[in-house]
């Protein structure tokens, strides 16, 4: 047995190291944590998170029926919209609603445009609003107390083409992932965005969208939006005017570099090697001592 261990010790060691390395560099699911200051974003609502937004003062504009006569409109064009004032209202979103949120800091107005190909785009105090709807919140800092939660496919900012108002001013991201044998996530990679970037999180392919959960507050002339994505083999797509889209993801190098297990494994390996070496030398010395003295 002793001989067997000594004979195959290198094979065992190399095998152990190979398995560990494979575990360490095997692609693991990671999340994106993103913090941005923007003037607008787009969201396709998904998921079970209750997306109910309490708003104290708002104006709801719905499209007029064809042929309806024009009315007075304060916030919306009376020729095309029916206007309704809402107080202490709860705005909800059916799943699949495509939402465009824009904050106009100059006028201090928050615009929510909602559209849902499948039916109701909004729920106002539980009542479904059919067709597309525009919700305008004057003085949103006063009308919206605290954070508004959101979940779904998020697109932060838009490419700064003519007429675009939903722009990113600044932001940063972290890619978080759990090292092997550990439950707590560590930062694998981090970085910042440039003004005018358009950000979304996609899966392995461009068409596969990844669900994000987040919230936003309106603060100091901008929307402050934070979100995180569920752990997946996802990548962040950054579109920039005049450049091809770039995709950011955590590579195996990022994974390895930030893995404390690697340090631990190196120490253990070093100890095992030294131990085996010592054992070998010791046993050699021991057996030579045991040899009967040779006669000349």
């Amino acid at each position, binding site marked *: 047995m002793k001989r067997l261990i000594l004979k195959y010790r290198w094979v065992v060691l190399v095998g152990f190291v190979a398995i560990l390395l494979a575990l360490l560099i095997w692609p693991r699911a990671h999340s994106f944590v993103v913090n941005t200051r923007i003037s607008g974003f787009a969201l396709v609502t998904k998921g079970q998170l209750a997306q109910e937004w309490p708003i104290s003062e708002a104006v709801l504009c719905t499209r007029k029926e064809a042929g309806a006569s024009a009315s007075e409109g304060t916030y919306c064009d009376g020729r095309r919209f029916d206007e309704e004032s809402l107080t202490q209202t709860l705005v909800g979103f059916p799943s699949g609603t*495509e939402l465009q949120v824009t904050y106009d800091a100059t006028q201090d107005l928050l*615009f929510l445009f909602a*559209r849902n190909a499948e039916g109701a785009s909004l729920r106002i105090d539980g009542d479904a609003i059919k067709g597309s709807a525009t919700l305008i919140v004057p003085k949103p800092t006063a009308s919206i107390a605290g954070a508004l939660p959101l979940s779904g496919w998020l*697109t932060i900012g838009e490419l700064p083409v*003519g*007429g675009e108002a939903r722009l990113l001013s600044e932001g940063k991201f972290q890619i978080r992932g759990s090292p092997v044998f550990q439950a707590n996530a560590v930062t694998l990679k981090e970085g910042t965005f440039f003004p005018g970037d358009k950000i979304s999180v996609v899966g392995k392919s461009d068409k596969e969208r990844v669900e994000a959960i987040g919230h936003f507050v309106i603060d100091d002339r901008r929307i402050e939006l934070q979100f995180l994505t569920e752990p997946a083999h996802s990548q962040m797509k950054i579109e920039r005017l*005049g*450049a091809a889209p770039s995709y950011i993801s955590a590579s195996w190098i990022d994974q390895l570099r930030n893995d404390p297990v690697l340090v631990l494994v190196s120490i253990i390996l070093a100890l095992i090697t030294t131990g085996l070496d010592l054992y070998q030398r010791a046993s050699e010395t021991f057996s030579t001592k045991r040899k009967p003295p040779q006669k000349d």
Partner: protein
Amino acid sequence: MRIATALSTTFLMQLVFPAFAGPLVPTGVAHENLRDAAEISGRVVAGVGFTGPPISTPPVATLYVPEAWASEVICLEAVSQDGRYQAQWEYEVEDDWAGGYVTSSVETGYSTFLKEQTGDGLASLVRNESCSSARGAISPATWNVEKPMANDQTLNVQLNSFRSDEVILILPDGDEIECTPVEESYRIAFDFICALPLASLKSPVTAIEVLRIKSGRVQPVDTFDLIAPEPQQARP
């Protein structure tokens, strides 16, 4: 010297744009590029197209050239949905053109790219102005299809709404057509598509208003002139 230059230019033109049998004579003006990233065009109407059975020899453009455009300079334009591909070709219509659909191959450095373009991915149109101008009446053009299908009763109008919430086409008789937004992640060269019934078009030219709504407000109205393909010619 000047004559020699002119002659050699004509000769070069002959080399670059070999004369092809058909009513359209290339004027020599052609721009084409395929970029890594998008370039955004400033016009509202990006393309007017129709559907038809796929053609066996792509890439070709099928465009409707009315009789009224005989001996005029026309510009064929194409832009891909992601905005990366943009192209213009200028032609002169022959003098005794009787009007109808023309299927024309184009001088292109991106034939592999163009061959793959079917459906709404590549917006295209023809205008009866030179390519340096952005004006002119608009007539439909589509890539890699035969003439329109007999049952195709609509034209697809691709619009760049400059990020509006909703877009409506208003016809001269007051009828309104709601346009549908294209998928959110691909709104670059155009962001709305409107299905325009052929029956709603007047012959020969229909002035169509584009009403854009953004944040509850009606944006300044754009108007374009659309040439109606004559039904008897559209459906041989």
